[in-house]
């Protein structure tokens, strides 16, 4: 940490007796910027006493830097009332000395120099310690529940509206002799919503195989096509109907968003599916698809975690899985320990958030309205823990 020393002020510019002199800044401090790669130094100071709101003599400040005992270079000009500056152009392995000049119409009035400061690299950002601990806590909860599920213990997940409708919807398609259309969104396999959609596909396709219905699945990504074909094949085999499966059930259309929409709309208009599943990540095409499905008289079950698209699905579809309900549905239907455990672990995170919010609001309200000291301490602690800077 750089401390001010008592080096003589030999760089001030003094004009004649009509000069406007301003007091230099005080308590100039130069410190290595914490938790970085050694690329920044923080300066702070007390502004000149002549830097006033009214009739101020100070025009601003100029920051100077001396690298490894060389010449002083001007770094930045700052406006009045500035009291801090971060020099983001330093390099590790060099020594830096700073001084700040207060500016007046007559010249500059430099401060004392700081002691040399060497920027250092920190490997761990300790200011994010609480973030790390909370992440560990939630991760530990997830792992605990995954292991619990793996040991065979049944984990409770509440009923999700819309899931009971799946079997009825597939049955409807069978009775009407019309196909089921499954659309897994337009994102690729790296999107968790697509993975959730394919998990639900496994369950839906077993029902379709049992009922001997027909399924169409146009997709927008080639990797999704591969994964979907594997899922369908496995479902038909487990239903004892491997002969009924065909690769043509899943076909790749195009990566282009509205080209895909045009193709699916055409498919809906021609094949008139009785049931449409819209599960996964959707964007601007969501309403076009849902509206077209509605116009051909299909029963529609939708689910996405995109907040901007949920209003359209809720307006145009018969059942909608809102946000996390999509992931909960995929965990519930697959029964896979990892998915169930993740869901329960996330619930622990949500419970933590609810408790913190409730306690924090009560503490904040009591400390502000009735000046209760212990509540003020609690509130300040909570705000500090959940601060990300």
């Amino acid at each position, binding site marked *: 940490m750089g401390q001010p020393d008592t080096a003589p002020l030999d760089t001030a510019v003094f004009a004649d007796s009509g000069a406007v002199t301003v007091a230099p800044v005080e308590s100039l401090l130069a410190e290595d910027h914490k938790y970085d790669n050694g690329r920044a130094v923080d300066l702070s100071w007390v502004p000149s006493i002549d830097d006033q709101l009214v009739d101020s003599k100070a025009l601003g400040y100029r920051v100077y830097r001396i690298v490894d005992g060389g010449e002083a270079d001007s770094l930045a000009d700052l406006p009045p009332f500035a009291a801090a500056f971060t020099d983001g152009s330093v390099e590790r392995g060099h020594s830096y000395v700073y001084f700040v000049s207060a500016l007046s119409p007559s010249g500059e009035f430099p401060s004392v120099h700081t002691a040399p400061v060497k920027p250092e690299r920190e490997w761990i950002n300790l200011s994010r310690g609480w973030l790390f601990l909370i992440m560990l806590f939630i991760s530990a909860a997830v792992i605990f529940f995954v292991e619990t599920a793996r040991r065979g213990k049944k984990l409770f997940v509440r009923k999700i509206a819309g899931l009971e409708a799946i079997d009825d919807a597939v049955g409807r398609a069978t009775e009407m002799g019309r196909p089921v259309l499954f659309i897994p969104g337009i994102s690729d396999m790296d999107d968790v919503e697509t993975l959730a959609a394919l998990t639900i596909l496994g369950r839906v396709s077993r029902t379709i195989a049992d009922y001997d219905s027909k399924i169409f699945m146009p997709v927008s990504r080639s990797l999704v096509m591969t994964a979907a074909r594997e899922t369908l094949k496995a479902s038909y085999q487990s239903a004892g109907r491997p002969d009924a499966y065909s690769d043509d059930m899943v076909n790749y259309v195009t990566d282009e968003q509205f080209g895909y929409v045009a193709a699916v709309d055409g498919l809906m208009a021609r094949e008139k599916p009785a049931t449409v599943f819209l599960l996964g990540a959707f964007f601007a095409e969501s309403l076009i698809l849902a509206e077209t499905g509605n116009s051909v008289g299909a029963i529609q079950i939708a689910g996405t975690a995109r907040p901007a698209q949920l209003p359209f699905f809720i307006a145009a579809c018969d059942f909608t899985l809102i946000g996390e309900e999509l992931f909960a549905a995929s965990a519930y239907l697959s029964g896979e320990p990892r998915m169930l455990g993740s869901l329960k672990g996330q619930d622990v995170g949500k419970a933590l958030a609810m408790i913190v919010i409730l306690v924090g609001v009560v503490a904040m309200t009591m400390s502000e309205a009735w*000046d209760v000291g212990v509540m003020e301490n609690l509130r300040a602690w909570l705000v500090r823990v959940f601060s990300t800077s």
Partner: protein
Amino acid sequence: MEHFALWLGAFLTLGILSFLYKDNAWYKLSEAVFVGISAGFWFATLFWDNLVGKFWDGKGEEPMLWVGAALGLLMLFRLLPKVGWLSRWPLAFIVGATSGLWLMNYLASNIMSQVQATILPVFSSGFGAGFDADLATIVGNLVIFVGTFTGLVYFFFSKEHKGVFGGAARVGIFFIMITFGASFGYTVMSRMSLLIGRIDFLLGDWLGMIG
């Protein structure tokens, strides 16, 4: 050339809009042109910006680019069934790297910051202000607190929605639906804006009817 560009733009715009009347050849032609050009555009952009701009131009300076290029090549093995499993490695890398980046980002921005911002004094206008909030501020603070809390209750899957918990979940879904209604309205505005932009092009830039 400018006249040709205007007429072509207008022709394609009207072709797409003709779908509102019914499906027709004009719409199919416009749509096919759009899909084709966008595919070509993306190919050209990714080739010149990524392959040439990032990898070829910088290959001598950054050794890690070769690692990236090798992983990219592995993706092509998907076309060969016998060694198709090799394409899972770059995919695993992308999923893992993205998950690692997103885990801390989302935890910090979408959970920690939001929890901190929800800790509000119900009857005060701010920190250190005391018991001074007017009715609008009190209602606003209560809406944020109750809406956030009950919304979290709705998405809690480990408990059945019964009794007091069920009541809170019901309040939560009301808040969520009102939010969706506002979002719907915003989206309608967005779609109308796009239509206004096209109408401005047709009536202004093309036909000169508006200034």
